[in-house]
Every structure is written in structure tokens, then in C-alpha cells.
């Protein structure tokens, strides 16, 4: 790592002992970035900022929240009604969870479209999938904390998934609950996990960035960086591009916080938890709906749970299921269409996850589940081998220069 370029004696003195300045220069300021990144590459930094917003709002909410079945619901209402700006903190946190998933889903689809997970970035991708899995656990436990009807019954249903495990299932569920139903020990430990896991996510994000900075960002052309001409310094070019995207995203985020704060929520969660009555129509939060649909597509308890978890975990082996040597779908005419069908299918599954399990919905859910897995297990390996890809450009620099000339003409 080269020394800091600063002429300031104090900065040089500190940097020799603790190289924070040369580290920042190396990883943020002069950090070499492909010249051709488009706006789909904004979502990583946006996700990082949403994580920070979630952690900060969460810390301040925790200062007024009480994890006990008797008072949890009332303490959340007190936050909204009595705590100064408590409504703002809660709605930032509540909608922030949805925003986090929107951003992360776009980030993941970006990775799948542009083949960002391919060699040498497999571990980068797998760390990302781990972040996603931990995020899901964190979001689920956070949703339990307000202790409304959906919190309680969501907690009951999701923890009961483990009862599908043969022989030891029931013991595991009792262990997770700390009792014989979702009760005081459950909400208490969920609060602890919900506060702890974001720190683990933060650690994983650092590992994610560490892996990213080894081979640098992938890019829309999916070809390797060959010469210094293919790159430019992160600052100011991508700091400003990221900030611009962040500004637009924050307008979207704040629209929900200030004008539609309960848009992503369920009205039933404003009814205090009642262990004696299940609401007639229970659904998980929208970001779990595609997997909830997959769970319900399988007419067998254990089978449904296994297939649902497989739907998430299959992402880990994506780098080895995709046999194509070409990274970017831009040069893969068939895969490109299958990809967009896959995106539409995921949205369709999400829609189906919110529908009752009857009649035609069941059949559609099974078909959509079929395509979900066929895309990964059949189409990816086959199309990668058989598809005739378009010719790749020679270098990022040539392509960028070509575009610039076209603009000038």
C-alpha cells in the first residue's frame, strides 16, 4: 500500500502509525473503478446506507422499547405518540426494512443479470447471500417485536417450520420459544437477536467489501479490467454518481415515511397479540412472499419447508450452476430473456404468496415454483453450454470511447 499523498505533516505522522489516510485513499478516493458502471451499480452503496439508517434508528428505538409481552405493544404505541419524534424513528425503521429488501433484491438481480458472481468473485457473492439470509432472520424477529396479531402469529407460524424436522422438530421449536408457546422468553430473546444480528451484518458487509476490493467491481460489459485506461478513481466520479442515486432513492423512501407510513404493513398488526385468536388471513411481510408461495406449493409439511429453504440456499451455488464463460447477459440473447422471465416469475410468486391457497392459485403457484427451480437447475447449466453468445468488446476503454464519440457526433 502506498503512502498518503498528503503534504500535511500531522496527517503523515498519523498515517505512519495508523494508516487510515492511505487506507481511505486506497479504498475510497483513488480506488480504481471500471469507467462504465451504470446506475444498477448504485444499489450496493445504497444498501450500505440503509443498513446504517436501520442501525441508528434501531438504537434509538431500543432506548424506548420494552421486550415484554405485557408492555411491548404499548411501548411501541408510546414511541409513536409520546416520545419526541418517535413516530419518525419508527416509520424510518419500519419502512427502512422494506427499502432494505427492495434495494438488496435489485442488487441481487443486478448480480444475476451481469454474472457478477462468476470467477473470481464467487466468495464475494456467497458472502452477499449470507448477508441476505441474516437480513431475513433479523427482519423476521424485528417484525415480532411490536407484538401485534401479525407479530405473534407470524412468529408462531415461522418458528413452527422447524417442527417439520423429523424426531427432534418439536424439541427444537420448544427450545426456540423457551417454553410451550411464543411468550415472554421468546420476545425477550428475539429482541436480543434483533439487536445483535445487525452487528453481524455489518461485519459481513466489511468482508463483502474486502472481497470486492480484491478484484474490484464487475461491470456491465462483464469483461476484465485490462489496462489502467479502463478505470477511473472512485472519487469524485462514483461518489457523486452514488450520491445522486442516493438522493433519488431517499425521495422514494421518504415518500413512504411521511405520506404512506403503513403502506407495507398489515392493519392487523395494530391489534395487540392474542394467543387465543388467529387472524383469518395471515401473510408474512411482502419480502418473504415469494418463498411463502413456494412453501405452500408443496402439499407436504417437511417437503414444503425443505423446498422453501432450498429456494434461498440455491443462491450459494449459483456460480457453479451458471456454466457460461460470458458474464454479462448483454451478450447472451437467450439467457437474457430467461432472466427477465425469472424476474417476472419472482414478482408473480410474490403476488401468489399473498393469495389464498385455493383453486387456480395453487396450480399457478406450482408452475411458478417449477420455473424458479428450473431456471437455476436446468436452464442455467444448459443455456450456458449451448447458447451462441455475441462477440465481446476488446476493452472497457474502447467501448467507453466509442460511446463518447457517438455522443459528440
Amino acid at each position, binding site marked *: 500500500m502506498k503512502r498518503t499523498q498528503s503534504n500535511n505533516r500531522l496527517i503523515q505522522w498519523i498515517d505512519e502509525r495508523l494508516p487510515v489516510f492511505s487506507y481511505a485513499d486506497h479504498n475510497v478516493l483513488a480506488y480504481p473503478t471500471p469507467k462504465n458502471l451504470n446506475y444498477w451499480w448504485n444499489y450496493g452503496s445504497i444498501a450500505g446506507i440503509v443498513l446504517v439508517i436501520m442501525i441508528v434508528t434501531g438504537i434509538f428505538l431500543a432506548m424506548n422499547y420494552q421486550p415484554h409481552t405485557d408492555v411491548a405493544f404499548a411501548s411501541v404505541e408510546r414511541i409513536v405518540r409520546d416520545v419526541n419524534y418517535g413516530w419518525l424513528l419508527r416509520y424510518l425503521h419500519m419502512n427502512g426494512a422494506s427499502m432494505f429488501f427492495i434495494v438488496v433484491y435489485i442488487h441481487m438481480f443486478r448480480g444475476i443479470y451481469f454474472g457478477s458472481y462468476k470467477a473470481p468473485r464467487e466468495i464475494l457473492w456467497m458472502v452477499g447471500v449470507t448477508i441476505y439470509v441474516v437480513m431475513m432472520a433479523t427482519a423476521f424477529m424485528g417484525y415480532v417485536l411490536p407484538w401485534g396479531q401479525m407479530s405473534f402469529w407470524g412468529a408462531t407460524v415461522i418458528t413452527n417450520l422447524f417442527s417439520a424436522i423429523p424426531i427432534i422438530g418439536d424439541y427444537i421449536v420448544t427450545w426456540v420459544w423457551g417454553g410451550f408457546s411464543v411468550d415472554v422468553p421468546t420476545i425477550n430473546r428475539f429482541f436480543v437477536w434483533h439487536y445483535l444480528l445487525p452487528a453481524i451484518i455489518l461485519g459481513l458487509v466489511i468482508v463483502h467489501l474486502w472481497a470486492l476490493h480484491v478484484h474490484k467491481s464487475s461491470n456491465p460489459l462483464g469483461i476484465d479490467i485490462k489496462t489502467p485506461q479502463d478505470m477511473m478513481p472512485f472519487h*469524485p466520479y462514483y461518489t457523486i454518481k452514488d450520491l445522486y442515486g442516493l438522493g433519488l432513492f431517499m425521495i422514494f423512501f421518504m415518500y413512504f415515511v411521511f405520506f404512506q407510513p403503513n403502506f407495507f404493513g398489515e392493519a392487523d398488526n395494530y391489534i395487540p397479540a392474542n394467543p387465543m385468536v388467529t387472524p383469518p388471513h395471515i401473510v408474512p411481510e411482502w419480502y418473504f412472499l415469494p418463498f411463502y408461495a413456494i412453501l405452500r406449493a408443496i402439499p407436504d409439511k417437511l417437503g414444503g419447508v425443505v423446498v422453501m429453504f432450498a429456494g434461498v440456499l440455491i443462491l450459494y451455488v449459483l456460480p457453479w450452476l451458471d456454466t457460461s464463460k460470458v458474464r454479462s447477459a448483454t451478450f447472451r440473447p437467450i439467457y437474457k430473456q430467461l432472466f427477465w422471465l425469472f424476474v417476472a416469475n419472482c414478482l408473480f410468486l410474490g403476488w401468489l404468496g399473498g393469495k389464498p391457497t385455493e383453486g387456480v392459485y395453487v396450480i399457478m403457484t406450482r408452475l411458478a415454483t417449477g420455473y424458479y427451480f428450473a431456471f437455476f437447475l436446468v436452464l442455467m447449466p444448459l443455456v450456458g453450454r449451448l447458447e451462441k453468445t455475441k462477440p465481446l468488446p476488446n476493452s472497457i476503454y474502447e467501448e467507453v470511447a466509442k460511446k463518447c464519440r457517438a455522443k459528440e457526433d
Partner: protein
Amino acid sequence: MANTPGNNPDDLDGDRRDFLLISTTTLGLAGVTMAAWPFIHSINPAKDVLALSSTEVDLSTVEVGMAITAMWRGKPVFIRHRSAAEIESARAVSLDELRDPQNDADRVQKPEWLIAVGVCTHLGCIPSGQSLGDNKGDFGGWYCPCHGSHYDASGRIRKGPAPFNLKVPPYAFTDDTTIVIG
């Protein structure tokens, strides 16, 4: 690479870049500062805490020479029904003898009722002297066992490390025998 011609922003248009950088940074910092306020303010006392900040106390059962302790904002308030002798002794003290000079008349609304926050002005312990057998200190008022501060029958500091008299809370008589503190 950072120094490749055309890549270094300073080569392009230094003044304009400086203006943009400084104005963007200023605006960003202003925004972050404003966004910080709701977080800082959220840990101030909430509306329900503020709503509890007055306490009504019935004095009708407190005989001369007795004292009761009311709770106001989570702290004890000493209410002593003073005897004529106590009032006399509190009034007789010359201001020169006092560390925190204050007339007894300025510390009471009705001379027979002394009302003061029962928190030692040294480091926040609760002085003894409310009950019959308590140590009332060398001046017939209160004595703080933590670091040995002595208060007189007007709640004024007379001896020991405390710098100020016991604080008189805001209160009002709503009738002859009822007060509202806060």
C-alpha cells in the same frame, strides 16, 4: 492511474470544482445536522413523562412538628409542618452565617410549611431528618449521611460539602391544606 491526464479533476476546472465540492459538503453537513436533531430530541423526556411532572399533596393530616415526603418527578419532596420555635430559629439566622445566603421568608409561601426537594445539593443523596428518630444534624433540619452535610430548619446548607440550600420546587396552594408541586 489517478494521475492520468484527463482523469485528475484538478486539471479540468479547479475553481468550479472547488465551489461544487465546498457547497455540496456544506449542504450535506447541514442536512446531517438537521437529521440528527430528531434522534437527539427523542431521548429527552417524552410527552407522557412531562405530563406526570406535577403532583398534588393533601396536607390536612400533617400535624405541627410532623413531616411527610411526597414524590415529584421521581424525587422526594420534604414537606415539614414547622413549629413556632422552628420558624423562629430559622428566621433568627443572620445572612452572614450562610454559605448560600437566603432569608427564610424567601423560601416559604406560608411560614409553617417548609417545602423543599429532598436531594442533597452535594451529590444527590437523600438527607435524613424526616422521621422522629432521625439524625437532624447540628442545626435541627436535615443531615446527609453520604458526605456529612447539615441543613437547618429552612433547608439551608450550614455545614459540610454541599454548595447550595435544598432546592424549593415550584408549588402553589390550591386551598388551605392542598398543594400542587410542579
